[in-house]
């Protein structure tokens, strides 16, 4: 039996330690890991918790991230609660196995501490790795600060393991900006946290020798398509469980999560849509613009990147005139992925707001209050004249000559 840890009502934790504490409180059976900056302390701390008797689990050291996720697949198929963490290049090496895990419907929780992808080598935060996972069949939840990294880990186990979901889940947080930033965190006690997640309920576990099962079977054109469509449907429909888990979490803690978070959107004329810690910086910028310039600015943030909250996005942006969608990942030859998804959602609505795309913050480039305010003011400019006055894709915070792509064809 694992020892309990006494926690204060308020702790000062960074995002990594907050996630590690959640893994401990979930009493994860197996963590197979190949540590990589900036996610290292998550698995390092889990290992320390095991060594010191605070978790009744196994820390498996492996030779690569591909092996780490493979170990997680094996342990999950065997019938255990499983989690790990990675970033950047490690995530890229895991990708092949991510699809295996979701196809086998194994409810693994993966903490992805978002970091830029080489080359050039860079350890700091951007969303290149998170975006690379978006077709992998995992639930993807996004934390904007350390408290949320803790909370969403607790929720992720409950969502992934629900019999109506049974899909793996990623919890994302921004490398350094969240993972290495200490802030006030209000944890649950060990008993409360474990009671919220509940005991792991194995489904078709391989260690049940009385009922042999096969994982990772081969299907050609006869069944592959049906399997994949069924998996897609499970992920599309998982929103029901996600909403219910968020409700239960609110009832327990008072902290409310929604698949799309929105701030000051009731009367907003212009909005920023973003992911990660940028969301909070943008909220402060919007508040200051409202207070000082009377600019009706609001912020929208997909908490749930997958399943993509198509409907909720349409609802929350229904009444804005101009929207800037921020992508912290270089789309390399296209518009930003979040821009494309927001645009697709809004194209099916009568309002069809003016939508522009900003690439920003690559490799950890700072995103300041002034950067956010500049973007809001530009959206106000579009809203006032009724068309997009700038290139549709721009780069915020880039040194050198201004870079932009595509002119609007909606101008009068």
């Amino acid at each position: 039996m694992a020892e309990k840890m006494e926690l204060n009502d308020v702790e000062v934790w960074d995002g990594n330690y907050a996630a590690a504490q959640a893994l401990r409180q979930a009493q994860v059976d197996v963590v197979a890991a190949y540590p990589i900056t900036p996610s290292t302390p998550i698995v390092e701390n889990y290992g320390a918790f095991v060594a010191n008797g605070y978790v009744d689990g196994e820390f498996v050291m492996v030779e690569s991230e591909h092996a780490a996720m493979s170990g997680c697949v094996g342990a999950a198929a065997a019938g255990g609660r499983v989690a790990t963490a990675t970033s950047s290049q490690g995530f890229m090496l895991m990708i092949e196995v991510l699809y295996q895990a979701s196809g086998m419907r194994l409810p693994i929780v993966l903490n992805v501490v978002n970091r830029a992808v080489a080359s050039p080598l860079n350890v700091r935060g951007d969303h290149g790795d998170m975006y690379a996972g978006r077709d992998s069949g995992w639930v993807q939840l996004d934390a904007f600060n350390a408290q949320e990294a803790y909370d969403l880990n607790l929720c992720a186990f409950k969502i992934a393991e629900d019999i109506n979901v049974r899909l793996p889940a990623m919890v994302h947080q921004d490398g350094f900006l969240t993972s290495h930033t200490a802030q006030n965190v209000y944890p649950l006690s060990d008993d409360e946290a474990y009671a919220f997640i509940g005991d792991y309920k194995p489904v078709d576990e391989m260690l049940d020798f009385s009922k042999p099962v096969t994982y990772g079977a081969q299907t050609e054109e006869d069944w592959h398509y049906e399997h994949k469509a069924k998996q897609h449907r499970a992920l599309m429909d998982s929103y029901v469980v996600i909403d219910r888990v968020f409700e239960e979490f609110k009832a327990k803690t008072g902290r409310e999560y929604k698949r799309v978070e929105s701030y000051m959107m009731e009367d907003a004329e212009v909005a920023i849509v973003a992911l990660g810690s940028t969301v909070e910086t943008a909220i402060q910028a919007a508040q200051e613009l409202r207070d000082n310039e009377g600019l009706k600015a609001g912020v929208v943030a997909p908490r749930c990147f997958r399943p993509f909250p198509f409907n909720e996005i349409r609802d929350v942006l229904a009444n804005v005139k101009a929207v800037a969608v921020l992508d912290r990942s270089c789309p390399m030859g296209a518009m930003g992925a979040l821009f494309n998804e927001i645009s697709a959602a809004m194209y099916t609505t009568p309002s069809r707001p003016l939508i522009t795309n900003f690439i920003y913050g690559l490799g950890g480039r700072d995103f300041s209050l002034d950067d956010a305010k500049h973007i809001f003011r530009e959206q106000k400019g579009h809203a006032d004249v009724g068309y997009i006055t700038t290139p549709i894709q721009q780069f915020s915070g880039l040194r050198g000559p201004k870079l932009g792509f595509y002119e609007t064809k909606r101008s009068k």
Partner: protein
Amino acid sequence: MIEIRWHSRAGQGAVTGAKGLGDVVSRTGKQVQAFALYGSAKRGAAMRAYNRIDDKPIINHAKFMLPDYVLVIDPALAFTDNITENDKPETQYIITTHLDKTELIAQIPELQDKKDRVHVVDCMQISLDTIGRAIPNAPMLGAFVKVSGMFELEDFLESMKRVLAKFPQKIIDANMAAITRAYNEVN
């Protein structure tokens, strides 16, 4: 909102200092943020750590700040790093040095017009004498308590003891001595 910027070398404990300060301040009911800019830095490389302290939740994640306090815990960085970057008229400087204040200011042109906002303390000597190693973060906290007037020394020491609770008593005592001595010696 109070904003603090630490100038340090990787390995001198600025990150631990910033997090320790955050931990202590959180126990007074305030909201805190502590982070650092070190990337893949090696021990000895110049780096910066940051604190924000406020009564309401801190949601600004930008690195950019106009610091209220600049804490320099490596003596050479006062000369080689841009310690007055984003200075504002109220910014207070606490610099670790073996020089006296007048000598130090005479050698750093950027501090000439900020004389009344510069404080000096020899964190290196204090940590060598009390802790036995050149770990200047704990003494800097003592100097900060004095200069900021944000806490009573006794309350700060009590909170710090709880933050350090996992360490052996000898280390806790040495840190308390370092904080107290820097509190008394900073000028």
